[in-house]
């Protein structure tokens, strides 16, 4: 490009920030600001989703009793504080929807992809900064549309977050009309936001890597986000298409999914899960990547088996496309198809196992620092193991006959999405907080938050395995209705109380997050003594990230390098006396 010299010059003056307030904080095109905007948005929805879960837990633990504070809810939801079944169904559906689409997914993909990709690959910003801004400002109305469901006649969508048809397609069946329509619209709009964002991430990673940042010098978080972005770009349009067809079934009277005139209910499930399983990996791969970064840092060791970690990410990314049928083993799907889906599903355990063992290998003979992000990362590994192993039960089709649609599944997804993704998100937020805001979060409160969360989390979700083995179905409003579930009611109450305590514990995190913004200890460039490019620029990173584009000489995790005796880490931008210039991390 002929303009190269000019751009270089402009970049070097990028530190002089002349943007107006609106351009700097609201309609910003700076990837870091957009990341922080996504952070605030998705933490808000995380809180909303958590609150909905609390109401559900109240009903499950104490069915038919007035919920404390439930009096503020209108009579269409909870007359006298006692939840109505229709409101309970809305809670179930909206908890899942908010958590998956508006909390975990934006937290991982919106926040960390935006914030980390340019900083970690040495780019001044995203490839398309304005598209990036559009991606955020499209996500906001999507969230508002979804929230609006609670305030329209008939309440929010009540067919589960999977919106199985025909229940979701016809108000005659669910009693919800406007809420279902809003759900479809919101998901279609959110889809556009995700596609724009992910197009940006892919292009940025392919084309904007700094000199020396070869493919196999990218940190695993970037690898994971890259594969995630590919999954997003290819999977989300399937959901958008399906949601739009469902929307037409609801509003225009089309017949895609309604069997009366030839529609196919199973078609919805196939489309949904063809999107939905890659989505599961969209929700866990970035978490795995960030945890890899944090574990290498905490162990002060290069990641064990970097290449096999990368190939495991790719394998998961590919296998994720051919396993969707395992959500449908009991759905009436062709049983022979079930067989092939079982095999592919079981195979996906292999790359997951590789990753787990490599994390253990990284800690082996390390010099482990138990800082807060590391604690969360360790919890991630410990909990992901449980979530992964419980998945084997479901992958085995005959066992799945019994545990499908029971609390065993609920336990499994929460071990993966809370024990997995959310612990990784906590690790990520605490780890990169100084780079976002220039201050540290409180270490001691962070530890208190971690230990309480870890304990209450396990007390909440582990017993759910037991409920499931007792045959406890998901999504039922009142378990005491069934005689065979009554012996399990004590456990339900125990879970509910643990869940309340778990929710209360998160107040510590919220307070720590907000207060540290103003009062946290100010930090220099590299508070965690990490090796990544983002730690070579001031905290918080300025607009444009670096005065001049950094050059990369090292593999991503060169901790405790024998040639560097003064400190136990080598930055990616550091030159060592005898580093081979083109070397990858496995050149030994």
């Amino acid at each position, binding site marked *: 490009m002929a303009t190269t010299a000019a751009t270089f010059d402009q970049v070097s003056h990028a530190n002089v920030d002349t943007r107006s307030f609106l351009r700097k904080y609201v309609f910003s095109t700076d990837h870091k600001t957009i990341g922080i905007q996504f952070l605030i948005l998705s933490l808000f929805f995380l809180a909303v989703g958590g609150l909905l879960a609390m109401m559900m837990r109240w009903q499950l633990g104490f069915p038919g009793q007035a919920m404390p504070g439930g009096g503020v809810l209108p009579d269409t939801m909870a007359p006298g504080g006692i939840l109505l079944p229709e409101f309970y169904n809305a809670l179930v559906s909206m908890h899942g929807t908010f958590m998956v689409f508006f909390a975990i997914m934006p937290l991982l993909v919106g926040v960390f992809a935006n914030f980390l990709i340019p900083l970690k690959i040495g780019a001044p910003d995203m490839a398309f900064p304005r598209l990036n801004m559009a991606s955020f400002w499209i996500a906001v109305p999507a969230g508002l549309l979804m929230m609006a469901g609670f305030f329209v006649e008939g309440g929010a969508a009540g067919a589960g977050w999977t919106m199985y048809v025909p229940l979701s397609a016809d108000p005659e069946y669910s009693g919800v009309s406007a809420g279902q329509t809003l759900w479809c619209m919101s998901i279609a709009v959110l889809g556009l936001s995700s596609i724009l964002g992910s197009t940006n991430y892919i292009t940025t990673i392919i084309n904007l890597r700094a000199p020396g940042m070869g493919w196999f010098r990218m940190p695993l978080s970037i690898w994971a986000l890259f594969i995630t972005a590919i999954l997003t770009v*290819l999977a989300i349009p*399937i959901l958008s298409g399906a949601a739009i067809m469902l929307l037409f079934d609801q509003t225009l009277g089309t017949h895609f999914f309604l069997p009366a005139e030839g529609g196919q209910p*199973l078609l919805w499930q*196939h489309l949904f899960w063809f999107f939905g399983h890659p989505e599961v990996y969209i929700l866990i791969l970035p978490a795995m990547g960030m945890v890899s970064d944090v574990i290498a840092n905490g162990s002060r060791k290069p990641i064990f088996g970097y290449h096999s970690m990368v190939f495991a990410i790719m394998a998961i990314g590919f296998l994720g496309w*051919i396993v969707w*049928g395992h959500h449908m083993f009991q759905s009436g799907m*062709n049983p*022979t*198809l079930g067989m092939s889906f079982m095999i592919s599903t079981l195979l996906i355990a292999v790359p997951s196992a590789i990753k787990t063992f490599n994390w253990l290998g990284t800690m082996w003979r390390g010099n482990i620092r138990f800082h807060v992000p590391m604690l969360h990362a360790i919890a991630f590994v410990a909990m992901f193991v449980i979530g992964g192993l419980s998945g084997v039960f479901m992958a085995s089709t005959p066992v799945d006959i019994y545990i499908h649609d029971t609390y065993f599944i609920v336990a499994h997804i929460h071990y993966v999405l809370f024990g997995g993704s959310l612990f990784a998100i906590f690790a990520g937020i605490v780890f990169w907080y100084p780079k976002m805001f220039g201050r540290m979060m409180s270490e001691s409160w962070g530890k208190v938050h971690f230990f309480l969360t870890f304990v209450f989390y396990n007390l909440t979700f582990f017993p759910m395995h037991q409920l499931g083995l007792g045959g406890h179905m998901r999504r039922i409003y009142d378990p005491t209705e069934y005689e065979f579930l009554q012996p399990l009611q004590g456990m339900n109450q125990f879970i509910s109380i643990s869940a309340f305590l778990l929710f209360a514990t998160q107040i510590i995190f919220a307070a720590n997050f907000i207060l540290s913004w103003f009062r946290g200890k100010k930090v220099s460039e590299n508070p965690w003594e990490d090796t990544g490019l983002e730690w070579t620029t001031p905290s918080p990173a300025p607009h444009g990230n670096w005065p001049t584009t950094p050059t990369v000489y090292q593999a991503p995790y060169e901790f405790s390098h024998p040639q560097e005796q003064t400190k136990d880490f080598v930055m990616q931008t550091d030159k060592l006396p005898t580093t081979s210039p083109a070397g990858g991390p496995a050149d030994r």
Partner: protein
Amino acid sequence: MAEAEHKHPNYVGVWVGLAVLTLLELGVAFLSWPKMTIILILLGLAVWKALLVALYYMHLRFEPNRLRILAVAPLPLAVIMIIAVITEYVW
């Protein structure tokens, strides 16, 4: 940009080809041949036309291999999904 270096492909020739193939399709569609034969011929012609557009108008013929791989990457997934779901009904 480097594209200027190669001679322009015969865009008008491709256009004529597309038009002729469309006419051919219209001709075939209303023949009284076995339905399956007609469908296969029509799909073949459609793919041919699509390839003409992708290779010449979208320049895939002249792009680096990496971009070509990126361009066709979603297709296997589409095929996997459609074939898997069809087995619900025909197998």
